[in-house]
């Protein structure tokens, strides 16, 4: 692993009791490419916590210009996170007044819950989960409060309830994005946790004087592990969230976590999440869990791939590797087969570009699958076959 990548990881994992400080100082005295360090922390969404730990434990080792650059970016991140926190309170208050139960997760609420402050976690939206059958009512409530939903093009707007997991709504005044979820995962992702289950086990967190419902810590932990997997383990920010949760809740009920993970078929996803938190942030795991991560070949392979990608500065696996890694992270054969079928079905699903390419009457709309196959083949032909032929001919 490069010195720059190591510096980032050690700064993210450092605590008052850890020995990382010595290692950070020796990395810094050996010299690092600060441009590369900044590029890594920006791309992984961890600039605030990286900067905070670096300035806290090794304040004199950071060049003045880098310090100024990080300061400006940190203040921008902090400003947005605080802005999103206020937006969260506004939306939750609207929904509560409209009689709609809502659970907040990720975004500013997670920052408050895990880091104790909004500024240390970069937020780019507000995520709120509601009951699917209250979705239309929630949209009405938010529209009347000045929010504008953004509907997907090329399909009737309510059809999105069957094909996606959320709709983005924007506050007109400050352009903050709120993702209104009716599900925690895309329909094809095979994650069975439902609103009613979350609601029955919910906790509450106080944000800016308002009590907001959040998932229980065991549910939250599994949601974070699943979210990380659904994004191909592509960002340190989400690994930090898992690590921070494990630090903040040392009394996490592992028996419940393991039971639920097995029941939902995401045991391996959970193991991969904790293995990454251990390997990147030096988080201590219970012996049984630690042993389980070390005996699962797929967990080891995925974790190693993620660390290699991070060190190389690549943030997501290659196109075809994404679904393959995701399928590999599921332990049940049935889930794997369903994911493969879903993947193929999803790739063949016509979108607005197919409908714009050829316009068919409604009666022939089933033929859009063929249109899509031809269009994609043509696209791929232009992108890969023609250059290949030209190379051969030259």
């Amino acid at each position, binding site marked *: 692993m490069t010195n720059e990548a190591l510096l980032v990881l050690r700064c993210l994992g450092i605590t008052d009791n850890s020995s990382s400080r010595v290692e950070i100082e020796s990395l810094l005295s050996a010299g690092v490419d600060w441009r590369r360090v900044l590029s890594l922390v920006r791309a992984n969404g961890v600039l605030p916590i990286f900067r*905070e730990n670096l300035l806290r434990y090794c304040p004199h080792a950071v060049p003045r210009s880098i310090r100024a650059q990080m300061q400006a*970016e940190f203040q921008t991140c902090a400003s947005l996170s605080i802005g999103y926190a206020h937006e969260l309170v506004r939306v939750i208050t609207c929904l509560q007044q409209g009689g709609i139960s809502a659970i907040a997760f990720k975004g500013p609420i997670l920052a408050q819950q895990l880091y104790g402050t909004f500024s240390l976690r970069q937020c780019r939206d507000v995520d709120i989960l509601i009951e699917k059958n209250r979705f239309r009512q929630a949209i009405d409530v938010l529209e009347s409060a000045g929010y504008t939903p953004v509907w997907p093009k090329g399909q009737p707007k309510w059809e999105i309830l069957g094909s996606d997991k959320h709709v983005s709504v924007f506050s007109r005044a400050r352009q903050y994005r709120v993702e209104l979820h009716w599900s925690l995962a895309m329909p094809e992702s095979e994650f069975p946790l439902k609103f009613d289950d979350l609601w029955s086990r919910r906790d509450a967190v106080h944000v800016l004087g308002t009590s907001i419902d959040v998932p229980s810590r065991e549910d939250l932990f599994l949601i974070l592990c699943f979210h990380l997997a659904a994004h191909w383990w592509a960002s340190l920010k989400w690994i930090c969230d898992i690590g921070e949760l494990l630090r903040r809740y040392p009394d996490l009920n592992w028996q419940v976590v393991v039971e639920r993970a097995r029941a939902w078929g995401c045991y391996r996803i959970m193991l991969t999440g904790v293995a990454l938190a251990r390997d990147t942030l030096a988080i201590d795991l219970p012996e049984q869990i630690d042993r389980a991560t070390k005996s699962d070949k797929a967990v080891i392979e995925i974790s190693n791939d993620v660390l290699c990608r991070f060190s190389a500065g690549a943030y997501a696996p290659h196109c075809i590797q994404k679904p393959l890694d995701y399928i590999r992270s599921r332990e049940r054969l049935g889930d794997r087969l369903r994911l493969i079928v879903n993947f193929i079905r999803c790739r063949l699903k016509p979108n607005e570009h197919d409908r714009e390419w050829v316009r068919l009457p409604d009666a022939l709309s089933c033929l859009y699958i063929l249109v899509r196959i031809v269009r994609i083949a043509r696209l791929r032909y232009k992108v890969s076959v023609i250059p290949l032929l030209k190379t051969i001919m030259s």
Partner: protein
Amino acid sequence: MANSTPPPVQGPLARYTDITKERLATETIIYDHERHRVHCLNRVLAFVLEQCDGHTPVRLMAERLPDAMKLPPDQDIILLALRQLNRIHLLTGEVPELNSNTLPSRRELARRFAYVGGVMLPAVASIVAPTPAMAGSRDTHGGPENGDGNANGDGNGNGNGNGNRNGNGK
């Protein structure tokens, strides 16, 4: 019978309305909702702001500096901090001590304390609070969730933006 009249203001008073305050290990972030500005206060300035409860005179604040901040008990450090806090509208009402024409500059203070190897003086960095659109808040990590992307590409957003920097005493 208890007297319900609040005690008279004897010292600087911090503003409590329309702000969000976040205390970190090395600094304090203040979001001013009224002026849409974000201030990053170093530890010394944050300490002085916390002392501004309306009942603590400048002299007493200075006496607390050695214990709290390991700084000399110099009233000029407090005055420099108060001037900065006043400039970024985090104080309410008048601070009579700031009307003097003999307030030392930051440079003079830095020179005065140079003989002890320099001390951390009050400092603030301020920016205009960016909207998400201004900041380009879609960071680069991650892409659309599994199954979301099709042949038309997995879009990645751009990086973090920088707000307008308006340093204050840094």
